[in-house]
């Protein structure tokens, strides 16, 4: 099983992107499961997605749950047992470091063969979030394979350049893309890249 972790702070657009990727991969005959980690917010509509052939598992436990890694591994085992999926997409809580998710999976979930981490950044709130939550944002950026700067339709181009430069300094290995998931700017190429990588 491959694993795609879509990380990012609360409100960064994770669910929108997740659904786009999941639908494209499902359309390409991939067996997809989604693990949604709720944290007091209304999650994605599991019933609706099941009608589209996507399996959805809720991962209860989030913002203050020290047993989250235990629950994550148990949920992955359940997904493997019930659905034998090609790819599982996990949307961790916005307060999680994807590095911790990767560590838990590598330590205790041998059924996962490959892990890719995509971190979304909210361009409209980046400066404030980076000032107030520097360590969390840094950790989310540093554990990413791809960083997507989202909501670029709502900010000046110069700001996007600054964010991009900051991301490059924090994680020179990551590929950085600028998108607007809602307005579908640069979304298709990113989704197609993920589909290619994860098939």
């Amino acid at each position: 099983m491959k694993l795609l972790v879509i990380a990012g702070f609360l409100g960064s657009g994770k669910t929108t992107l997740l659904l786009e990727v999941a639908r494209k991969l499902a359309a390409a005959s991939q067996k997809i499961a989604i693990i949604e980690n709720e944290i007091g917010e209304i999650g994605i509509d599991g019933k609706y997605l099941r009608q589209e052939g996507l399996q959805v598992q809720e991962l209860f436990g989030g913002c203050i749950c020290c047993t989250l890694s235990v629950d994550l591994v148990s949920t992955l085992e359940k997904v493997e047992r019930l659905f034998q999926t090609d790819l599982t997409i996990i949307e961790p809580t916005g307060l999680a470091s994807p590095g911790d998710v990767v560590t838990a999976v590598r330590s205790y979930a041998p059924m996962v063969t490959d892990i890719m981490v995509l971190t979304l950044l909210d361009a409209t709130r980046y400066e404030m979030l980076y000032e107030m939550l520097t360590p969390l944002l840094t950790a989310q950026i540093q554990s990413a394979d791809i960083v997507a700067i989202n909501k670029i339709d709502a900010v000046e181009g110069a700001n996007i350049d600054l964010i991009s430069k900051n991301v490059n300094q924090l994680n020179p290995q990551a590929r950085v893309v600028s998108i607007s998931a809602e307005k579908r700017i640069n979304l298709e190429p990113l989704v197609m890249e993920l589909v290619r990588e994860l098939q």
Partner: protein
Amino acid sequence: MARRETMTSEERVWAAIRLEKPDRVPIDILASAAYAQVTGMTVAEWYANTNEDKHWASIDKVWDYTGGWDLDLTSMAQGNPMVVKVGMGRAMGVRFKFPGVDLPDNYTAQAFEQEVMTLKDYDTIADIGWQRFMDEDYQFRILDITPEDAAKAMEEGAGSFFRGLDRWKKRGVVTLYPVNSSPLHPFFRFSMARSMVRFMEDLRYHPALVEKALKAATREYIEQIIPACKALGFKLSFTAEERAEGFFFPLPVFERFWWPYTQEIVDALWSEGIVTWFHLDQNWDKNIPYFKRLPRSSAILALDSTTNIFAAKKVLRGHLCLAGDVSPALMSLGKPEDVEAYCKKLIDEVGGDGGFILSTGCEMPTAVKLDNWRAMIQTGRNYEFSKR
């Protein structure tokens, strides 16, 4: 007392807190619903249970099988689900979701973090304190209860609390139960009640408002704990924090909004001979050096396995006692030999010269394997004697 042991649990725990080398490492367990599955109940059944003796039977079964520990945190029986609901809601300041009701049967109960406290509530708290705010208003926003329900639950909860204390005392175990209705540091309490995002925005856009409430809540926290500890004969006070650390916030935020209130709490309690037990979840690596500013032996830092306890020991050796950090993942996903190996490493490297309590990292998970629990206890009880 086993033949090789030369100290009681009380002597052993306090030797570690005083940074002395006890006869063997003291062992601490923080567990609540973790007793369910290992004794044949679902977690949902644990929370729905109405028979206090049934809970005690589970706790006793685990105690007997594992060999028992020196310090206990929250191993209490409740005979009324409402007591648990009210107690947890008031303690954490958030709504909870419970297995069997809102969650699958064997899930851990979950804090459901939402923006319930409003911006203007900071003024109210500054004026009347957190306790009155909770009693007169806030608890009815997070709990679907009447004032009569709340009063009855608290009365029944107090009864269970004192019966539990008595049981552990007869067993010779040191207890570390919170003595006030919210064991959370005021910073953590506000973060939970406002929700993380709103609270972070408050710190940025309304810092004076937050500080005014933090000052009042800190003063009140101290004023509640000291007389309660004196009345109960407790010398340990429990404070939890998992939002202020360098995993989330940069040091300037920590220095302004957390550290001064923390120092005030520790200094006030220490002046009365009370030691603060900090339950510190998440990664505190960047914050550990600050604790060196506290008076020697005035606090214990209980780490959850996310902070590097070995590095923390290097910084705080000979200054503060550490507790931890057998992780929930290891206890539920690992094997007994893995647990044993990690406990030995902790005992050798963190406890080698004293000042260490072998403890669950955060809380014993509901999916714990009973043989892992036993491996932790047995390693703590026997490893050092086996080397002599």
